[in-house]
């Protein structure tokens, strides 16, 4: 009897691993191995158009030295931070506002909720293109609206002006990012028991007190988690910026992600691009370490 049980257990285990095999192979071949390549390329100096021969180039820390001492790298890091925080803070505000509005029973709620969340499903490149048109210097509706309101006298060339380009890529990113907050916060709001609000009503609590003492404690955990995930997403966002400006004008919108891509496919400095990528991962990793308490529930 014990022998039979153990062969059964062994068969079960083999079955469990067999089912996992395709996923494990995928992750190793298409994520772990590429990551190994990135790290190994980051130590290969110089540039080569013969990518198969990258492994024969001299080994050294030259890429790290040149990238980390380049002021353009730190400029890009700053742009990345400005872009990330400039995106997630307003997006969180819109997400919280819309979630509070949707957390009620009213006619057509299902359809309005779907419509409100729709920007999440719009491809990043398309978001970028639609806003390029809205922010067009001569014929865009944004300049038209600002002219009509008397806020500007001369057309603003949003995407070609160094001082406005970052704003002009942040706005579409906010638009794509807010539904994720709406979604997570709405789910959290719906898990708050209604009798808490009833009790607060009996005690005569004001709207502000109800928000501070019932609503916010109820959604705090999911809110922090959503901020972290959306922050990680904005930090590595590529499509929206690349399609709108490619990092320009004069590097005003060149985040680390864009810079890595331009180094790799604009100048073919694969090694330097890999170093920037490693740097991005290191920053994201620090970010995750700081937030590990919130993430633990979700991922470990």
């Amino acid at each position, binding site marked *: 009897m014990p022998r039979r049980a153990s062969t059964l257990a062994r068969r079960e285990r083999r*079955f*469990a*691993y067999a*089912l*996992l095999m*395709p*996923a*494990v192979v*995928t*992750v190793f071949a*298409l*994520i772990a191995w*590429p*990551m190994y*390549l*990135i790290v190994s390329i980051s130590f290969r100096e110089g540039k080569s158009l013969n990518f198969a021969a*990258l492994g024969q180039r001299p080994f050294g820390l030259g890429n790290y030295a040149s990238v980390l001492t380049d002021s353009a790298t730190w400029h890009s890091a700053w742009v990345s931070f400005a872009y990330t925080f400039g995106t997630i803070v307003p997006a969180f505000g819109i997400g919280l506002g819309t979630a509070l*509005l*949707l957390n009620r029973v*009213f*006619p*057509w*709620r299902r359809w309005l909720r*779907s*419509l409100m969340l*729709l*920007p*999440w*499903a*719009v*491809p990043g*490149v*398309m*978001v970028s*293109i*639609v806003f390029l*048109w809205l922010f*067009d210097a001569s*014929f865009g509706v944004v300049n*038209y609206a600002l002219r009509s309101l008397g806020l500007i006298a001369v057309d603003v060339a949003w995407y070609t002006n160094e001082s406005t380009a970052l704003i002009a890529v942040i706005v579409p990113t906010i638009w794509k990012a807010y539904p*994720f907050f709406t*979604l997570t916060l709405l*789910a959290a709001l719906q898990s708050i028991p209604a009798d808490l609000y009833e009790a607060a009503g009996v005690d005569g609590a004001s709207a502000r007190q109800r928000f501070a003492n019932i609503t916010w404690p109820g959604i705090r955990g999911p809110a922090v988690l959503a901020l972290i*995930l959306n922050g990680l*997403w904005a930090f590595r966002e*590529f*499509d929206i910026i*690349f*399609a709108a400006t490619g990092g320009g004008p004069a590097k005003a919108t060149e985040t680390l*992600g864009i810079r*890595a*891509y331009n180094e790799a*496919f604009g100048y073919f400095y*694969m090694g330097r*691009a890999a170093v920037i*990528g490693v740097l991005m991962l290191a920053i994201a990793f620090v970010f*995750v370490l700081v937030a590990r308490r919130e*993430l633990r529930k979700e*991922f*470990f």
Partner: protein
Amino acid sequence: MKARSTVGWTALVALLTAILLFPLYWMVVTALVPTAQVLSREPALIPALSDVSVRAFVVAFTRKPLATWLGNSLLVTLGATMLSLVIAALAGYSLSRFRTRAQEWTGLTLLFTKMLPGSLIVIPFFIMASTFHLIDSLFVLMLANAAVGVPFATWLLKGFFDGIPRELEQAAMIDGCGHLTAFAYIIVPLARPGLAACAIYLAILTWSDFVFARTLINDQARWTVTTGLVSFIGEHAIDWPALMAAGVLTMVPMAVLFVLLEPFLVSGLTAGSQR
């Protein structure tokens, strides 16, 4: 009183939705009115119905190989979605039912893929593809998209399988059914809503992909629709109506899929649902 306040609430939410969706509305309007009206310093926010024309759509299809691009996108999306879904369903089921060492690694793998920038991982993909002369292969593009989709899809499906009682397949196995047969005939049909939601999610991600498509495909006849859309911008004078028409056609399938997916989004897959 109560009825009036809920109607007022609907009006408020509808107004806000209209403001938030203005960019999409404007895309559709631009695609439907003649160029002369589009390139105006004072465009009409609500165009007259008599001005509506589909000329921009015709232009988009005749001046650019838009049909080919949409077809390529469809092919890659279907391929990558099916591939990731099968791989993730098997792995998700295994993780849901058996304790293995892999369990400790799934959370970390998922978190890592959430940190991994697309513009970084595409570098080794490009190097591998050019080493094996596989640039311009739509199959490689499918693999690249599947790679980033599998970890999240596995995690999502594990959650769905967790919700299906084990007694069901145990009963089938007592009746002499093999484990794999029990999975295929008992569990998969029950998990159909979860599989559908996951497939829609993967399809939206793959359809939206730009960084892999732009880097791994050079030949214009093999571009996907996102690369195609961006090629409009590089031109000397951008044909906005044609570009917006192409945008509408890119958006429609995603909007339909999204409305189907949305109830699942709210009810279950909250936390990780962002690539």
